[in-house]
């Protein structure tokens, strides 16, 4: 099909056609050099042994206790922060859009979400250390005012829940930003029609609202998962290299060949690419399907 379009587009003049390509070429070269080639190189390197021959050894080398544990805790943290982030984000978005709150609140929340979803990385770790670290404000207030010692109770910011709680700071706003247009797509007529037919608000959400939002919800969930899975700066600033998650393991490998095998490092990268790619493909497929309700 693209071939026929091409032949229709080409007649005008040769000079203009060359200009078209001249305009798009920098973009294509850029994408090839900085997106496609580096990724393909790593995928290839994952199958090359120390002797330069094709091998599955690197892939097999992933199945050690340390690496499997790293993947597992990465998947758990990404999964937990994605699911909680998606649920809370959906609830907040529903509250500000459908909850009859003052109109100004919505734009304030959306603006803040734009900021908070970009407020990731190292400063976010600092903020949570100041809040829930051993000397953090919340920790101290809980201890002195309510006599609850978080750290004696087993909480630790440098742990699964600590990291999940921190990741929620950019996951929830991202969910709000992405799901808000879908909630806007729920037409007023639908809830009016439902209540005319005698449906309670609960029935409306159970049988109409949530089923329509469901694809967007699932799609965004996989996007949030991929978002957390590739994140490293926050975790690194928070825990140093003490928490064994895949991006930190890969970081150590790139810095100082911690696994003492470049091929294994490439295999680690391949695993990450596969997991984030699957999550994103799910997102793209589902969001394409979800769009039919958004017209």
């Amino acid at each position, binding site marked *: *099909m693209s071939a026929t379009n091409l032949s229709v*587009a080409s007649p005008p003049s040769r000079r203009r056609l060359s200009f078209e390509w001249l305009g798009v070429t920098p973009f294509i070269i850029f994408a090839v050099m900085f997106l496609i080639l580096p990724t393909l190189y790593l995928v290839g390197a994952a199958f090359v042994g120390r002797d330069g021959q094709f091998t599955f050894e690197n892939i097999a080398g992933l199945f050690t206790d340390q690496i499997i544990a790293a993947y597992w805790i990465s998947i758990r943290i990404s999964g937990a922060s994605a699911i909680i982030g998606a649920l809370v984000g959906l609830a907040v978005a529903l*509250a500000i859009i459908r909850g009859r709150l003052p109109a100004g609140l919505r734009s304030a929340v959306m603006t803040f979400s734009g900021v908070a979803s970009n*407020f990731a*990385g190292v400063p976010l*770790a600092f903020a949570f250390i*100041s809040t829930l670290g051993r000397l*953090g404000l919340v920790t101290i207030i809980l201890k002195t005012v309510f006599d609850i010692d978080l750290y004696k109770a087993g909480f630790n910011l440098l742990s699964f829940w600590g990291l999940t709680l921190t990741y929620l700071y950019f996951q*929830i706003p991202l969910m709000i930003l992405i799901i808000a247009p879908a909630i806007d797509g729920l037409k007023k007529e639908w809830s009016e029609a439902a209540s005319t037919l005698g449906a309670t608000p609960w029935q409306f959400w159970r049988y109409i609202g949530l089923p329509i939002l469901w694809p967007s919800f699932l799609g965004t969930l996989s*996007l949030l998962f991929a978002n957390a899975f590739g994140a490293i700066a926050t975790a690194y600033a928070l825990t140093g290299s003490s928490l064994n998650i895949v991006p930190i393991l890969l970081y150590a490998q790139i810095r100082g060949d911690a696994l003492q095998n470049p091929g294994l490092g490439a295999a680690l990268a391949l695993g990450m690419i596969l997991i984030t790619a699957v999550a994103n493909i799910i997102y793209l497929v589902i969001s394409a399907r979800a769009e039919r309700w958004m017209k």
Partner: protein
Amino acid sequence: MKGNRFWAWLVFGIGAAYFLVPLIATFEFSLRMRRGYYSFDSYASVFSDPRFQATFGYSVVIGILAIIVGILVVVPAVYFVRLRMPWLRPFVEFLTLMPLIIPAIILVYGYIRLYNSSSIIPFTGSALGTDILLTCAYVTLALPYMYRAVDTGMRTIDVQTLTEAAQIAGAKTPQIIGRIILPNILVAVLSGAFLTFAIVIGEFTIASLLNRPAFGPYLQNIGANRAYEPAALAIISFIITWGAMGMINVLGRFAPRTSARTD
């Protein structure tokens, strides 16, 4: 429907608490440097640190370069895809989504392996080369946002008619893009630019692994060695992010809405 509103307020309140408490706590923490009472000592300490000035300045320069390169790469591509090669669009869109699919740490690992000092294009062989590589890496990170901003901007103007009018008046293609199209989508381009800046300014992973003296690695270093300055830096970073996003909101009000012709 009264219950409805109660739940909405409750959800909003809990959400607001989760997002505001860390900011308040961080601000409070940043004031604790002097024992006994609150002071802005940690901020003074941060601003007087020559490494803060050097790394922040470096990141600003790289950020601006990334914005310029990003505009030069994205605007002509979006223009020609829109005007003459719509069949290329799904392909281009997929490419611009790739930085969201492939984590930054993977990209930089690929760069280090691919463009090392013994390769055909030895970016990492010299400081200047690494700076160029870092700039290009940031253009790549910001590509999804820049592309979307420019694409949205071009959707709101009538590219076809503007181009034809300019051609009749005798303008050449670079003139059309530079002097007709670009000014018309300036607001969208600037939105993309501020978003790029917000993403790039404190970026840690790529700058750190390429060993460049950028603001992100500096932040991490301070975090590992100081007590109160990190809190001050977190507040400063938050204000910078807020400023960049605020600019986008302000600019949005100036967006031209000449014609939203059928698209």
